[in-house]
């Protein structure tokens, strides 16, 4: 068990977790239609971080660093800085470990027109991680997790394991991914994007929206109890399991996700779970697969939501962003609505919420699935 000590979200909905949570609670979506964007032939519904606001936020941090940072690195640095700022943790200490969760990092630098100012090593994920952790003077090599769309959950599971048996006291888990012609064109070629606001678990769902975010969760060991904030949420358990079915399509049975859920909730009373924050990408197959796994594990009566209608799918940041927002909701005794949903229909019926409800239950379950057949589940609890 590890405790959340601080957090931050940088997204289209704001530059603090509190701003992001307030917007989501009000039902405000960060998704916007872009007629022309990223030099692409098709229009795009997406949630993008405001460039000017990011530049301002980055320049307001006083640093001696002379490095020219990329947009991806700036977003990650601003997010980690703002999360660290709320704590007394010295990020330069050797008891602090940085863990970076990302799928594509600086991939846009593969474009010859964008790479001129940067050294060729900048497309490597470990290089970005080095620059981010050394911005804070951290002496330890950062851990980089790149596990497709479950990266943000995988990074938290890594943090839990490392804090349990290593000398580190604190893990700064940063999940970040930016949009680029590379990523968007790929999803477009898959025909998996919707040009309208996505409709998770809806009868007429027709694809996902992409989003940008950088989010940070700082975890600490339970031994340092005096540092734990009043409204902290703790990570109790987490598991990853593979479908062994298809590299780009979800399992038709939800078998891998079932295993991940079963391992995660095995010591838990289901009655204590306030809600399931599903992956809910709004692709036909993903949402059906999740409905099967939730049903096969006996959780079909629980309230379910997806946050993709607010942030889009933020890829390597999704697991961190959605864990933070769901944790804020849990502490606020609230179960958030599933934005975008109009008429519910999945292979197995679920209790997906169309408006916010209140609940004083203590736990929530976070689900994620991704390319490569991977599935993850996390169980979190109020302090």
């Amino acid at each position: 068990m590890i405790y959340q000590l601080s957090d931050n979200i940088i997204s289209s909905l704001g530059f603090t977790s509190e701003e992001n949570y307030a917007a989501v609670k009000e039902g405000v979506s960060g998704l916007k239609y872009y007629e022309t964007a990223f030099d692409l032939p098709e229009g795009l519904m997406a949630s993008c971080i405001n460039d000017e606001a990011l530049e301002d936020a980055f320049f307001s941090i006083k640093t001696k660093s002379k490095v020219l940072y990329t947009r991806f690195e700036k977003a990650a640095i601003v997010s980690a800085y703002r999360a660290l700022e709320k704590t007394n943790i010295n990020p330069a200490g050797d008891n602090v470990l940085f863990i970076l969760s990302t799928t594509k990092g600086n991939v846009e630098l593969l474009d010859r027109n964008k790479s001129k100012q940067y050294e060729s090593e900048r497309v490597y994920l470990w290089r970005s991680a080095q620059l981010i952790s050394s911005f804070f003077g951290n002496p330890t090599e950062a851990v980089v997790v790149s596990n497709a769309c479950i990266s943000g959950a995988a990074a938290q599971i890594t943090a839990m394991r490392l804090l349990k048996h290593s000398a580190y006291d604190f893990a700064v888990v940063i999940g970040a991914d930016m949009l680029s012609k590379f990523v968007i064109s790929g999803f477009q070629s898959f025909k998996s994007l919707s040009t309208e606001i996505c409709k998770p678990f809806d009868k007429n769902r027709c694809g996902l929206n992409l989003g940008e975010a950088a989010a940070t969760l700082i975890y600490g060991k339970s031994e340092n109890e005096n540092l734990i904030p009043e409204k902290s949420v703790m990570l109790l358990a987490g598991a990853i399991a593979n479908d062994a079915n298809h590299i780009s399509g979800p399992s038709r049975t939800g078998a891998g996700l079932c295993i991940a859920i079963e391992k995660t909730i095995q010591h838990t009373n289901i009655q204590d779970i306030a809600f399931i924050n599903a992956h809910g990408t709004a692709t036909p197959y993903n949402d059906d697969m999740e409905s099967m796994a939730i049903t096969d594990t006996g959780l079909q009566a629980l309230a379910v939501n997806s946050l993709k209608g607010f942030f889009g799918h933020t890829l390597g940041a999704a697991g961190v962003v959605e864990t933070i927002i769901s944790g804020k909701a849990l502490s606020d005794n609230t179960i958030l609505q599933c934005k975008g949903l109009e008429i519910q229909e999945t292979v197995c019926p679920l209790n997906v919420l169309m408006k916010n409800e209140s609940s004083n239950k203590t736990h929530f379950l976070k689900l994620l699935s991704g390319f490569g057949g991977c599935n993850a589940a996390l169980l979190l609890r109020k302090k």
Partner: protein
Amino acid sequence: MDVTICSYCRLTNDKVVVNGMEIPIQKTEGPWLNDIYRSLKISYPKFFKMDNLSKAGFLASELLLKDEIIDKENPKKDISIVLMNRSASLDDDRMYQETIEDKNNYYPSPAVFVYTLPNIVNGEIAIRNKIMGETSFYISEAFSAEKIYNVAMDAFSDESISQVVCGWTDYELNKCDVLLLWIRKENQNGIPFNINNIYHLHI
């Protein structure tokens, strides 16, 4: 906890070594990884759709698990696959970039895009062997026996896991650097799984 290396495979640009024995490969003018595939006499047509990273990891896993996991059909919930490399999927990323760079020659391909994630190689090995434990991928600037040891041992923190396929799978700019290990807890027959042995098996 005692963990043993049951088998290992080292795959580089000019050699395939399994448990210390070099495997003879019939070389042709064609790609080296395809030569290895043909020499192994396996029939798995999906191989030819894979990118180089997945091909290299897949071939090493076939050699590693050939004798022991004969059954490729039944689901195995007690095995995890934990891999690491330097270049993530950059080899395939660069190929995909070629398809979108020029506005007048724009042909993004889903078949290429799907391999632009490093953990797809875990997925390919999982599908082939019906492995349903954890699949994870980590990135490191350079090969590190210590890091491989740590993440593989951590996979056993899930108590239902008794075996892990772990190691280093890197393929970039025509350079293939793979060391795959099949490890098992509480098994006395084999080389002890420790940092020193991982380091020496990579040389």
